[in-house]
């Protein structure tokens, strides 16, 4: 099982971002951090979870580095018995708030992996994305994490924007690989509703040629692609989602899935603080789960059990056209770029 903790606070809101996060609720942080403990204890009890069940913990956001490490202590205290001894423990962080002190303290609590939101090393692009940091903050944060003893480091980049040129992307990759990273995420800009960019959707501009060149450049640095946006030493947590592992979500707007139920908490921070045990359940039909497995499997190196696909002639057609291959009764997309289209074709 996977464990996810959501931290819904940010220093500023980026132009593209639709994640559940708030910039004006910092005064609620302490209260929030006690309520997540309540929820965790309750959920563990309700689900009768055994010790050491979680093979990963992922602290995501929002911006986890906006919350003092001391406020995480109680959470780690209650969670620790339920974590496997070799659990992957990741925290997201932003370059402007991931200080050496914070990282070192988090390391002491058990964090062994960092996912840092770099987005780009180009100052113009960072400003345009409305990021709260400059490019040198990225270098500093990565080095700080390394000195703090966190050796599994990933950075996020965003591409497919109106500002991109082949040269800009090339420089971003060069800058990234100067740093001691073991993983890289490169996300094509997606226009989300209710974000500043939603008013100007044309800012998302992807050229297939540039994307392919980007993938090749990353590959040339020895980072293999294992999902449409992920390269390098795989994140066991994210791979777990694509493998369809069950997961528990803690915090405002955190989602979980246990067997055929997807569980949702309050997304509103105040509502969550008032009632951290509140839950709505979404029932997943066998067909929903089947579609999800196909969808997730094709976008990653996880692949899809061929038994899930009723019309085998469609598999044959894909193989014939060189779009997919089968190994040990699992179907894999040749290029993750077509994952959704292949899923539609198989449906």
């Amino acid at each position, binding site marked *: 099982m*996977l464990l*996810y903790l*959501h931290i819904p606070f940010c220093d500023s809101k980026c132009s593209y971002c639709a994640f559940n996060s708030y910039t004006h609720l910092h005064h609620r942080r302490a209260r929030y951090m006690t309520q997540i403990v309540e929820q965790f204890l309750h959920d563990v009890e309700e689900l009768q979870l055994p010790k050491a069940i979680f093979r990963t913990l992922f602290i*995501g956001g929002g911006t986890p580095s906006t919350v003092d490490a001391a406020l995480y202590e109680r959470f780690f205290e209650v969670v620790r018995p339920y974590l496997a001894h070799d659990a992957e423990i990741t925290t997201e962080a932003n370059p402007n708030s991931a200080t050496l002190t914070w990282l070192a303290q988090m390391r002491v609590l058990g964090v062994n992996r960092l996912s840092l939101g770099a987005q780009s090393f180009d100052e113009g692009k960072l400003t345009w994305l409305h990021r709260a940091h400059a490019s040198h903050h990225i270098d500093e944060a990565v080095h700080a994490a390394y000195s703090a003893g966190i050796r599994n480091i990933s950075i996020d980049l965003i591409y*497919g924007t109106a500002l991109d040129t082949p040269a800009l992307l090339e420089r971003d990759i060069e800058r990234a690989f100067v740093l001691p990273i073991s993983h890289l995420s490169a*996300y*094509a*800009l*997606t226009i989300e509703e209710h974000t500043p960019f939603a008013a100007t959707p044309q800012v998302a501009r*992807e050229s*297939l040629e540039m*994307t392919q060149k980007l993938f090749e450049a990353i590959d040339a640095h020895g980072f293999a692609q294992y999902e*449409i*946006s992920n390269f390098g030493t795989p994140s066991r947590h*994210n791979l777990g*989602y*694509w493998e369809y592992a069950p*997961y528990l*979500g803690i915090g405002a*707007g*955190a*989602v*979980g*899935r246990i067997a055929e139920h*997807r569980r949702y908490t309050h997304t509103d921070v105040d509502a969550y603080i008032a009632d951290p045990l509140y839950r709505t359940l*979404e029932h997943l039909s066998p067909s*929903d789960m089947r*579609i*999800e497995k196909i*969808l*997730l499997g094709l*976008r990653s190196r996880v692949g899809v059990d061929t038994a899930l696909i009723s019309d085998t002639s469609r598999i044959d*057609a*894909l193989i014939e*056209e060189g*779009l997919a291959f089968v190994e040990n009764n699992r179907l894999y997309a040749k290029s*993750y*770029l*077509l*994952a*959704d*289209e*292949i*899923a*539609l*074709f198989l*449906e």
Partner: protein
Amino acid sequence: MQNIRNFSIIAHIDHGKSTLADRIIQECGSVSAREMTAQMMDTMEIEQERGITIKAQSVRLSYVKDGQPYILNLIDTPGHVDFSYEVSKSLASSDGALLIVDAAQGVEAQTLANVYLAMENNLEIIPVINKIDLPAAEPERVAEEIESSIGIDATDALLISAKTGIGIRALLDAIVERIPAPVGDPEAPTKAIIYDSWFDPYLGAVGLVRVFDGAISKGQQVKLMANGEVHQVLDLMYPHPLHRQKTTIINSGEIGIVIMGLKDVGSIKVGDTITDAKRPTAEPVGSYEPAKAFVFAGLYPIDTDKFEDMRDALDKLRLNDSSLSYEPETSIALGFGFRVGFLGMLHMEVVKERLEREYDLDLIATAPSVVYHVTLTNGEEVKVQNPSEMPEPNYITKIEEPYVKATVITPTDYLGNIITLLTNKRGMQLKMDYLNEKRVLLEYSIPLNEIVVDFYDTLKSTSKGYASFDYEASGYQEGDLVKLDVRVAGDIVDALSIIVPRSQSEQRGRALVSNMKELIPRQLFEVAVQASVGNKIIARETVKSMGKNVTAKCYGGDITRKRKLLEKQKAGKKRMKAIGKVNLPQEAFLSVLKMD
């Protein structure tokens, strides 16, 4: 009977018939101010939405002139050429017609077509010039045009505005004065013509009649002369778009709705005569030609399981649209569906839209086709409604195609372009008359196939909307025609085949594949689109394969959202027809007839 006036309102499209009907209904106080809406005779949703009349509607009104009460039975008719059958039916039960002409537009093609129908019925015609409120109105010029082109006296044409109400009172007085009262023998055996019928969910199948002789009374045993069936009259009503009024008798010269408790509208045939079962009339009133389908197209449910639902829907729709004809057909590409006969393209659009909307079906329509008369080498003559059923060339001695006599009226400014258009469409000029120095009437003999699809739109764009057009069937002529097939990913898609003149086959083939290329969305696979005549490929295009379809980020929190997005995309694809591995959108099926 002396106080009854039966009349139809006829005109070219949009000259204001339905709006005038509103004013007349209002002036007669037949609806309250609160109930008044625009074009109230257009009771169907699709009529209101498109602002056009599709089905003729009757209303019985009361009017007082010089202290004398009168009954006015008004029929509002459609102006569009596809529905001219409705005009014929209406005129056959009228004693007069109001000929409406738009004061800014003047005489148009359907003005002429409809006035000739009225003349054939020997009706008193009152010319009415409408929209005089418009700044561009030229009532004197239009009156002259009516005289010169139609040959009727327009010196006392009425000048009105159906919008503002100017001249309505004078028009009503003229109706009373100039339209003759009905003639008929009240004592003779019942003789009434059914001029419309439909299915009412509460009353069942009902007939709308005009009584010529005798009367129809509640409780009477009546006979339908076409099939000899005898039924009892359960109820009688006067027609009205909002509130029908019950009555116990419909007298000689009147109109009314006859309710006999019938489930099947099939026995209430439009054009049939109703008479008394015990004391029948000697001769029926005389019947109309049933509406004849001009064009045929395949209609297929996208979801192949919906074939039976579609049959039910067509059966139900026919209850209110007797001009609809259909029979099951199968297509290799599209599965099971129906070949449906239509009065024209607008009729086709309306039927498809109603089936989809009112019966919740998703349909694919194939390109409409005319009926070819094909003589085979063994001397046999076959009728081909579906291009894919055209026999192989080596079995054919000759192919004949239907022609129409087309009438176009245009301002002289566009004459050159319109003649070029008609010539490109294989038209032969029969006549060219100047209505006055600014407007010309053209008559052409032209293959029906050429005007089926986009002719009307092209004519309108060629003339900035000023030219008008009407047509009537004019028999068959031999043509040098071939079947043009479309191959998608190598296989012939039978539903895309069309018949074209041999001389145009290459050019049409090229236009067709390049159109298709634009319409077929990129898919997982590269798709070759080819046009061929027999085994010869005459044009080819390739739809490149898709490069990317995947969302960048997908984590535990948004898997449900991603699944729903995928399902939405899937629903979008479902609206397309899967031909083998290729999804073809609806427009691809109609695009084969687009010329450019």
